[in-house]
């Protein structure tokens, strides 16, 4: 049962990646213009004829688009995403350099969002009518209505320009040989912007699902029979957590999309910044690779969330919902 379930989820992940690659490939190559130059673009001069020949052959550049896609797919599966047109190095190695930074920002902000929203959401949901309960939904709507980049600009102005306590941008300062503390200092602002603009949303969702659970039938039955409040809460939280996780899964893609903007604003040298840049310079191989990697990260995150839900929700485990 379990193996089958995991297999099914993985298949979905593969399907997602396939659709992503298919769509973005055709979107990008539908435009007129030589796709050959798109593969080595600015490096045309530095590449030898033999190298050009090799690239052209590997990616079937002289063949019709569907064949090219097939060739690209075949290369991509083998880890060869082509050469970046702008930077002139293999796409895979550029992505590899950027990945840790993105994962760091993504991981740290996700961590604080989850911790923060669980704490806020539970506390508020468990105390209906309290100040926190009433305030949270307003805070949530307000904070999620602020464009992240605008908050970021204000932060930079406040903390970097006026107070001078934090570095304005970048991934690490120079000469400070990029130690851990230094990196964290650079991480504070982008991560806080991401956390502040998202934590309310998730907290509110949890709060509402806790409230919905508290109003449910089994809670009434348990209360009427004097079951200990602690025991009731345990059950409520567990149940409220399942839709919360689901929501997390549903919103991870847009959350990830949002971090693109934050990365660019803070010159955080991660995937998001890379994606924006490759759009500007029309570096298709790099953009394509970046999109695929982003898709992969999202797919993996969704898989992790699915597994968590699977562990938490016995109905899913017992196959009641049919997957």
């Amino acid at each position: 049962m379990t193996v089958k379930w995991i297999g099914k989820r993985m298949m979905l992940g593969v399907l997602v990646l396939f659709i992503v690659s298919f769509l973005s490939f055709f979107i990008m190559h539908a435009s007129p213009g030589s796709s050959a130059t798109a593969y080595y673009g600015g490096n045309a001069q530095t590449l030898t004829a033999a190298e050009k020949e090799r690239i052209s052959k590997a990616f079937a550049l002289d063949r019709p688009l569907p064949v090219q896609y097939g060739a690209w797919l075949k290369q991509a599966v083998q880890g060869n995403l082509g050469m970046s047109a702008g930077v002139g190095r293999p796409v895979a190695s550029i992505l590899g350099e950027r990945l840790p930074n993105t994962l760091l920002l993504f991981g740290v902000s996700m961590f604080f969002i989850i911790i923060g929203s669980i704490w806020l959401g539970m506390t508020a949901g468990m105390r209906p009518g309290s100040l926190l309960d009433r305030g949270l939904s307003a805070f949530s709507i307000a904070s999620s209505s602020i464009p992240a980049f605008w908050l970021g600009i204000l932060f930079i102005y406040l903390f970097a320009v006026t107070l001078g306590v934090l570095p304005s941008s970048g991934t690490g300062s120079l000469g400070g040989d990029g130690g851990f503390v230094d990196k964290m200092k650079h991480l504070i602002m982008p991560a806080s912007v991401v956390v502040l603009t998202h934590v309310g949303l998730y907290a509110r969702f949890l709060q509402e699902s806790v409230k919905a659970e508290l109003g449910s039938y089994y809670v009434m039955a348990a209360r009427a029979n004097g079951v200990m409040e602690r025991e009731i809460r345990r059950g409520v939280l567990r149940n409220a957590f399942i839709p919360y996780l689901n929501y997390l899964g549903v919103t991870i893609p847009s959350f990830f999309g949002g971090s693109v903007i934050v990365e660019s604003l803070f010159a955080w040298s991660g995937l998001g910044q890379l994606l924006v840049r490759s759009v500007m310079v029309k570096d298709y191989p790099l953009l394509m690779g970046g999109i695929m990697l982003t898709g992969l990260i999202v797919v993996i995150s969704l898989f992790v969330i699915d597994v968590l839900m699977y562990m938490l929700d016995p109905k899913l485990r017992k196959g009641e919902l049919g997957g």
Partner: protein
Amino acid sequence: MLEAIGLSVKINGIPVVKDSSFFIPEGKITAVIGESGSGKSMTVAALLRMLPVDAQAYGEICFMGTDLLKATDEEMAVLRKRKFFTIFQDALNSFNPSVKMDRQLYAFSAGRVGDDQDSFQKKMKAILGKLNLSSEILNQYPFELSGGMLQRCMIACALYVKPALLIADEPTSALDKVVQKEFLKWLRLLNESGTTVLIITHDLDVVADAADEMIVMRKGEIVETGAVADILARPTHEYTKRLLDSRF
């Protein structure tokens, strides 16, 4: 054992139970009958002190010397834990869907009395056996069991704790006839072991089958009270008569 004097319940100012007085004798099975909307469920909610937030109860409900409407939350909690046991209509939803039965049954029974796991396992398995339930259900989740089985689990808990007053709100309406009969049998068994039972129903068969005393409610008012045999034989109120007629 329990007496309501001039009990009224208002929801947002609109009365749903009007100035009702009734008495539940100790050691008997008393049935409250009425169609939906008659106020019977609100009456139960009032005496459990579990009214919805926008509802308000007035009057007096005396249970073993305390006025339930004036009792503190702590006193009420103690009463619910020590003296009452309540079975609700929807057995399927009376249990937390994502917690295994043994944990939940423990909370509903041994947890109230203060027994440890060992004695719970021993005693509960015995009771389940009596109720024709396999002890394997302890390792299952509520959604894996049928409504009848779950209702029997509730009875099992009641049998375990032997409460002073058992309140059953439409316990059989979701069950088919055969299971219903079975359920009422266990109810009587419980009554014989000394528990006063208050059963709320819209089904006259249930009343005739199980109850000693009955209270007929209609549109928030009590229209008739008395021994089941008396009322069934000689209904005085128009509504009761109609109720009896529709039975056949």
